[in-house]
């Protein structure tokens, strides 16, 4: 009996102290990414090139005005709203028919999106077969704004097999108090290896950097992204990398005071890039961009990919695709509207998709 009591005593103390992360918000520096596979594998006809698409899909929120961009007060969607929005997102993906899709702000188990697993939804409704997912915001319960459970992040989807999916943690914003930091977004780089039908391998990377950092965290995240790409390049491997960098290209004519930025809460103001104009210089200098810098600098507006105002139009470029290989000449397209991409993407998300054709070496 005394022995049993000792076991119970030890168990209570151990279990009481063991749950240091009661809301499951934390990540290791490097973790395996979550792997998904379509129920029905569709064999792709490999033409020797790869169409690459990057898109921040705003967790299937379409153009609902949510509280965080200050155009509205919505927090939660019902399932039908999410399915309707995701159906339109999937229609656009199927129109483009990408071989590789880099997707940001995709929810897999969030109350705000009625717990619809959007990675599975895309796999089920497109010809993409394989996916890796890395969470950038995970909590069993966020006690703020009525958000509740959140699991949202980035995913790499492909027609061809993916392996070695890895989540590489990026630095956290340093100005948050510990409580906010515990529940806040944890940015990362999602990495995977794509294997083509001819056996060639390409590293694929997806990133979504901090939107609201004021302490240089976003710069650190971009620099780490650049270092990872350099490592791959120096190892003699090819990569395709992209995502939502929340940064504008060098040579942007407008760098602040965007008309869609209506937030007055300092935590959600993200429209002053005037001190950040050189942050992407090293990426442009070392690698090939889907949209060459000279083309962007000739005409900024044709390449804009973001606005929070559903009644406005794209007014800044935040989304990119890079490679150390080569993209087919003039194969890039920023899918802004019917005249540029064939679909009114303004209705689908607060970001426009960007596509380019990669020439396999």
């Amino acid at each position, binding site marked *: 009996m005394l022995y049993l009591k000792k076991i119970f005593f030890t168990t*209570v103390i151990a*279990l*009481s102290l063991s*749950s240091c992360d009661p809301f499951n918000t934390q990540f290791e520096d490097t973790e395996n990414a979550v792997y998904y596979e379509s129920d029905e594998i569709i064999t792709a006809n490999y033409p020797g090139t790869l169409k690459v698409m990057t898109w921040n899909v705003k967790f299937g929120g379409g153009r609902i005005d949510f509280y965080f961009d200050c155009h509205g*007060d919505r927090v939660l969607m019902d399932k039908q709203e999410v399915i309707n929005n995701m159906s339109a997102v999937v229609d656009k993906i199927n129109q483009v028919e990408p071989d590789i899709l880099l997707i940001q702000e995709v929810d897999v188990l969030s*109350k705000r999106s009625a717990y619809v697993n959007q990675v599975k939804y895309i796999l089920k409704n497109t010809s993409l077969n394989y996916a890796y997912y890395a969470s950038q915001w995970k909590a069993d319960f966020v006690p703020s*704004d*009525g958000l509740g*459970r959140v699991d949202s992040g980035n995913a790499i989807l492909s027609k061809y097999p993916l392996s070695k999916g890895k989540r590489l943690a990026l630095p956290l914003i340093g100005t948050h108090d510990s409580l906010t930091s515990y529940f806040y977004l944890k940015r990362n780089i999602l990495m995977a290896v794509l294997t083509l039908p001819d056996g060639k391998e390409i590293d694929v990377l997806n990133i979504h950097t901090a939107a609201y950092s004021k302490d240089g965290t976003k710069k650190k995240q971009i620099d780490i992204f650049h270092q990872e790409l350099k490592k791959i390049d120096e190892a003699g491997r090819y990569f395709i990398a992209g995502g939502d960098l929340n940064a504008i290209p060098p040579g942007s004519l407008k760098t602040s005071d965007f008309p869609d930025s209506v937030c007055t809460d300092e935590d959600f103001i993200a429209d002053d890039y005037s001190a950040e104009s050189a942050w992407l210089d090293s990426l442009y200098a070392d690698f090939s961009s889907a949209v060459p810098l000279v083309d962007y600098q000739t005409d900024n507006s044709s390449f804009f990919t973001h606005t929070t105002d559903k009644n406005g139009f794209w007014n800044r470029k935040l989304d990119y695709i890079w490679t150390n290989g080569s993209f087919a000449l003039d194969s890039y397209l920023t899918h802004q509207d019917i005249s540029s991409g064939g679909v009114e993407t303004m209705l689908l998300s607060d970001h426009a998709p960007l596509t380019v054709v990669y020439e396999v070496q």
Partner: protein
Amino acid sequence: MKIYFKSILYIFVSFTVLISYVSESYAQNVWTSDTGYVLPRKTLETGVFQNTAYGITDTLEVGTHPLLFFIYPQGYVKKQWFKSNNLAFSSRHGMGIPTLLLNLLAREGTGGIYPADMKAPFVLSHFHEASVTYKFNKKFIVSGTGDLNHALTSGGSRFATVDMPLVYSRTAHWYEDNWYARVGIDIQGSINEWITYLIDIDYFFLPSYPSYINIEHKGALRFLFKKGRYGIVAGYKMVFGTYPFGKQFHIIPFADFTFRFNL
């Protein structure tokens, strides 16, 4: 500073609601919750987070949460119907109106458990519980408990559930099911004069949700000081439950400070 204070206040309220689900009333080296026992006459038992209970007579106990009462009017009456040397039987009956609390927790920013654009319905919840306890010896008792919880709701806008362990199983009937039932077994004993322990397991039923399953297990130690007038409770709760997103397992630590007075 004002915003920071408000945030702390809202988190405290939320935490108090949560902890009140796992804290237990206690008397004479026994947690009286989920047992056939009641607090002795003129004994007041309170804590930082737990309900406050008072023994009106040796067979009648009343309880409420005094801090939450103004935003969540609630209370119970517990009557002991039978007691012998080894056996005790009691029933507990209570009600509460969480509407004001729900609307208070529907806010922007930290402490916003519900979205600010939602308005809670009027909810009148009531429960009825029966408990029986068998005392094997002075240091070891076993109790069985069953209860039925029902809610009457009216008005309000579409309101979200709180998909958290401990909370969802006890509040989902406010929105979806209208009633739930619980059965459980408690084992209590003392390790020595100043340390007691509690182990329990509870099973929850939501009748209109056939695949629903919620099992909770608790282990707790109570350290007594000053002849039991002060106590520190520390333990864990394990929850395996069904939520709107699926099934999940949690381990939740908890602690409380308790005080007992003979008035």
